């Protein structure tokens, strides 16, 4: 069934199709239509879930943790300062191995106050132990939200799904809403391996000494290392049932390319347009879209970029004092690749706080990358007026 809907409503439909049982959330621009739509769905009975309308994002994540620990399928959504406020509990959710799914509508952090998109909110949470998946379209948002529960529950890991504020959250697109019965076959009700159960009492999260703590983190890391493989299976199932697949890393017109753009989120669609123009003009330019940021898909990216001379990373984020974060991680992933499979990485910082990344901006990135003999800085700022 095709519906025209904004990205935020695609999130709500994803949660509804996944038959979430407990939602706990707090409103924040530009996520608000997610909680509004879910409230409507809970109120009219189309989504028979408990929605706990908490007093803060810190409590939203805490309530999700409690519900997940008690064995039910649990969902929340937030943005920006809300995500930052959750930080402590993001560690708790991941360390406690609670398969919570959260959508983050990417928004810049203040000050100054800024409600528009960039990725610094979610990328600031990269070391909390959450899987991170970045989406390009509303269809991808809906599909990924449902898939995220399967991925989360197979591995007992929390999964964060990202969409760009306004560019996607508030933009209406046609979205194919999958059939509920088919989604039910794809994603059966959650059966928790461990839960708070009065018939089988256990203590969770107790003090662990130095002789045990490291093993807990090791097991968490081993589960995260399984994510690319499990995600591939989840996507294969989805492809078989619904005919759509995205990939943790997607190559677009990358064959025999001299220069590849590396993108995430909605800027990917703009970059596709530019790549099509360049290809039509006979230029060997393509792109690689990074959907999965945690765990970092090192092997997939090395494969996707092998043999290319130059890579231009478009980072709608900045690690202050260093560089764009996708560029930084990509450089580290390529460092010990064979020399002929290790392109020069040009890292561009652009689009912060919702500044437009137009085709002209991407053209500029391409020309600068072509003309540079080497990347003189790790952070090449685009369109900034000092």
């Amino acid at each position, binding site marked *: 069934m095709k519906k025209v809907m904004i990205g935020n409503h695609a999130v709500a439909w994803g949660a509804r199709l996944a038959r979430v049982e407990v939602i706990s959330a707090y409103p924040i621009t530009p996520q608000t239509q997610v909680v509004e739509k879910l409230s409507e769905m809970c109120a009219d009975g189309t989504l028979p879930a408990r929605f706990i309308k908490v*007093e803060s994002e810190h*409590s939203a994540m*805490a309530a999700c943790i*409690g519900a997940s620990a*008690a064995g039910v399928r649990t969902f929340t959504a937030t943005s920006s300062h809300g995500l930052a406020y959750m930080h402590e509990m993001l560690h*708790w959710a991941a360390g406690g191995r609670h398969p919570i799914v959260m959508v983050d509508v990417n928004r810049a952090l203040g000050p100054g106050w800024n409600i528009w998109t960039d990725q610094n909110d979610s990328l600031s949470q990269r070391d909390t132990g959450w899987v991170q998946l970045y989406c390009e379209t509303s269809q991808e948002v809906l599909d990924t939200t449902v898939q995220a529960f399967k991925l989360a529950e197979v591995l007992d890991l929390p999964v964060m799904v990202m969409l760009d504020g306004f560019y996607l959250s508030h933009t209406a697109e046609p979205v194919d809403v999958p059939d509920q019965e088919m989604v039910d076959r794809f994603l059966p009700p959650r059966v928790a391996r461990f839960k*708070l159960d*009065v018939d089988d009492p256990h203590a969770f999260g*107790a*003090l662990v000494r130095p002789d045990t703590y490291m093993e807990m983190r090791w097991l968490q890391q081993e589960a995260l290392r399984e994510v690319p493989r499990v995600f591939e299976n989840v996507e294969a199932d989805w492809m078989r049932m619904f005919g759509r697949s995205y990939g943790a890393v997607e190559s677009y017109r990358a064959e025999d390319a001299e220069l590849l753009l590396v993108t995430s989120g909605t800027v990917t669609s703009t970059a596709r347009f530019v790549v099509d123009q360049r290809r039509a003009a006979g230029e060997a330019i393509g792109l690689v879209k990074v959907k999965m940021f945690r765990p970092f898909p090192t092997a997939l990216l090395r494969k996707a970029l092998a043999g290319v001379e130059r890579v231009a990373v478009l980072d709608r984020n900045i690690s202050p004092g260093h560089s764009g974060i996708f560029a930084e991680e990509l450089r580290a992933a390529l460092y010990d690749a064979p020399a002929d499979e290790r392109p020069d990485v040009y890292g561009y910082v652009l689009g912060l706080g919702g500044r437009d990344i137009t085709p002209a901006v991407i053209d500029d990135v391409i020309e600068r990358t072509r003309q540079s003999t080497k990347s003189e800085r790790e952070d090449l700022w685009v369109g900034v007026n000092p």
Partner: protein
Amino acid sequence: MSQTRIGQEIPAGELMTPGHLACPGCAAPLAMRLVLKALGPNTIVVMPASCFTIIAGPWPQSSLQVPLYHTAFATGPAVASGVRAALDIRGKPDTTVLVWVGDGGTFDIGLQSLSGAAERNENILYCCYDNEAYMNTGIQRSSATPWGAWTTTTPAQHPEASNKKDILGILAAHRIPYAATATVAYPVDLLAKATHARNLRGTRFLHILSPCPPGWKCGDDETIELARMAVQNCVFPLFEVEDGERWRFTVDHAHDAVEPYLRRQGRFRHLSEEQVAHIQAEVDARWASLKRRVAASTSEGAVPPSLAIA
């Protein structure tokens, strides 16, 4: 209330085991033991950071025979709200969700979360065991620390300068179904309140005074006596509030002088006669205020819960 009925009044079943890691003389495990006797095995405990994080035992041990979820400092009521929602949606509305947390997690860092849960009238039982400072981290002041008390962050040269926060008044102002004070020196009263709370729905709050020998600088055999003195001198009167409206005392209070209670504790050793007099005046004022609230409620003709249960 007579304490001679203890043998008959307190159930024999134990849900808290020996071998826990509390300090000698700690009131907190006594309180937990009594509350769990009242609640029974169909209970899930949510426990934010507090002394009890240690008392309950490190992995893989637990001194509680019911499911226990350890969580971060500010989150007890929110985690409990999530557990409650999960139980309800899976058809287990009769399981009691108990939040067990100290004064720091209640009066200070957890107050926002607690207010949120109380405002939503979440169906949870919240027990604050109050030892009047951050004892687990080594005796730092909290907003439950009484005026004049020494702690490591309020040295004797400059002791605690704020009055203790009126946490029960704050909870009563949320008009939750039940809020009450209790302490280990009155186990029958504590048990009656926990049992009454168990049988209600909505947010229920027990504020349990929990003497701490290392923090209060008293002997580990003085816990019960100090708790009893705190009740009888009206530093910590025992009362309950229904729906924020109906206030009543649950024991008789002698309104003894406060000085003997203060002089028994090293944390008050530095106090001058004038400072003791100041504390007495403050206790008297609060006691008078509480008596007025109770008097204004007596016309309701309500029955004390300890009698109602029997």
